[in-house]
């Protein structure tokens, strides 16, 4: 991992050995640019890159590439997310070229939530390729200078290619192997699903480190502070692949009226402290869902400010 693949800020931070801190911002359900700028503005200077989600939970929003460009204009580095649900390989490759041409340097490759969840359940899905093949596509375009059909492209899109990992989805035994597969396919960094079950995550990371995966790829631990007991219960019950231990829900309940959000932040801060020391973890991906204005406070209290310049 000596030369830069993309030269993105996130890549430079990680290669310099700093503990990375990334954020996330969902584009608006409309063309409300001001709202997007306001939300992203909270993250400016607090994180190394901001994930821009791609019609997450299959709810239609401003396209992730367009919102990513707005962030670029605001002087914030985006991490452009792309899902396989809505694009075939033609659209995927042309969007990769398009975002690179406009200055986007990070890309997170995802399968995408099934449209059945979202606000257009009648839609037809695509899934021409899967997330593993999306990683491979971006890598082939970047490193081989070729399209998926083997044809040469003229200027390669030099993107820092990322992927997601959910250590908590079943079957657990396969998850670390799937991570290894994503790294082999070309992922340079990984952002995990929101972590709440620390015991399980420790076991997952132990396996990843035993396989030497942390030496081939930067792994960022996913953190989402709980805002309320209701949110914790919802995530535990209704979000597939999410593992929220009963002990955490109890802890939030015990915080008392008006203090649950603070307890949620405290838990997140404890997690971040542990991740700083955890072998194989190169940073934290903070997904403060519709809570962007809390990110400066969380970053400050987590001791990750000021962000290093590289």
């Amino acid at each position: 991992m000596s030369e830069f693949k993309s030269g993105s800020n996130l890549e430079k931070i990680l290669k310099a050995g700093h503990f990375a801190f990334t954020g996330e911002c969902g584009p608006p359900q409309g063309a409300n640019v001001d709202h997007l700028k306001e939300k992203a503005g909270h993250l400016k200077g607090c994180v190394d890159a901001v994930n821009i989600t791609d019609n997450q939970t299959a709810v239609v929003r401003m396209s992730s590439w367009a919102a990513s460009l707005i962030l670029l204009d605001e002087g914030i580095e985006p991490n452009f997310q792309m899902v396989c649900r809505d694009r075939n390989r033609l659209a995927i490759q042309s969007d990769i070229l398009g975002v690179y041409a406009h200055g986007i340097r990070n890309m997170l490759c995802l399968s995408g939530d099934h449209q059945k969840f979202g606000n257009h359940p009648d839609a037809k899905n695509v899934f021409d390729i899967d997330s593993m093949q999306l990683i491979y596509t971006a890598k082939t375009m970047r490193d081989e200078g070729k399209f998926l059909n083997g044809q040469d492209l003229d200027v390669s899109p030099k993107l820092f290619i990322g992927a997601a990992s959910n250590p908590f989805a079943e079957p657990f035994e396969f998850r670390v192997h799937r991570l290894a597969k994503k790294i082999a396919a070309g992922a340079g960094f990984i952002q995990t699903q929101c972590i709440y079950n620390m015991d399980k995550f420790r076991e997952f990371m132990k396996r990843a480190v035993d396989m030497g995966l942390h030496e081939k790829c930067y792994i960022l631990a996913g953190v989402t502070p709980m805002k309320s007991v209701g949110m914790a219960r919802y995530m535990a019950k209704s979000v597939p692949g999410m593992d929220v231990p009963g002990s955490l829900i109890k802890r939030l309940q015990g915080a008392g009226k008006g203090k649950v959000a603070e307890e949620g932040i405290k838990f997140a801060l404890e997690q971040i402290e542990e991740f700083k020391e955890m072998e194989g973890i190169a940073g934290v991906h903070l997904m403060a869902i519709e809570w962007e204005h809390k990110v400066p406070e969380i970053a400050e209290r987590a001791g990750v400010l000021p962000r290093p310049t590289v």
Partner: protein
Amino acid sequence: MIVAEPKPIKEILEMVKDFKKVLIIGCKGCVTVCNVGGSKEVGILASTLRIDAKKNGKKIEVEEHTLERQCDPEYVDEIKDIINDYEAVISIACGVGPQFLSERFPSARVFPGVNTKFMGGATEHGIWSERCAGCGQCVIHYFGGICPIARCSKSLLNGPCGGSDHGKCEISKDVDCIWDIIVRKMMEQDRLDELLEFKPPKSWTTARDGGPRQLIREELVI
């Protein structure tokens, strides 16, 4: 087999409400096996149409006929002498049947009496489940004899997505995560290493994406 389910009776009654002479045609193939379009179901639908007409003070003549197969011109020909006596024809074969009838008898008004669902089989009495997406290039031997194209909601070829939840798919607690089943089976067979191999993007040219399909086997063409 091709699995189908009856259309709601209201929809069928609406389709044929203006006709006084109706021919119902069943099929002894897949739709007989899945209890939706055989001679028994032809009889039930015919009785329903007659009762409905009587209830509404209308006159209707309903004829019943079940072909060996509606997807075979040789058998479709059987009704050539009677079909023109009817104003409407309801086929309760899969989607192939009413189309073969329409093609063979261009002046006939043919209506579908069933909704064709998928290629699959009965897993329990009264329960059918999809098995094949007809992609035209079978790869199930890579996946423990299980098809992720037909049975994974996202047709993933490189392992389970993050929505796999205690053996169930993210779309519904009633749907198995087929990748959970594939992984566990391959682990049991000590073949996990095979799943760790990267599966490149699939060519969909042999699937419906390559356009409407036709199969020509020269050795059988007369």
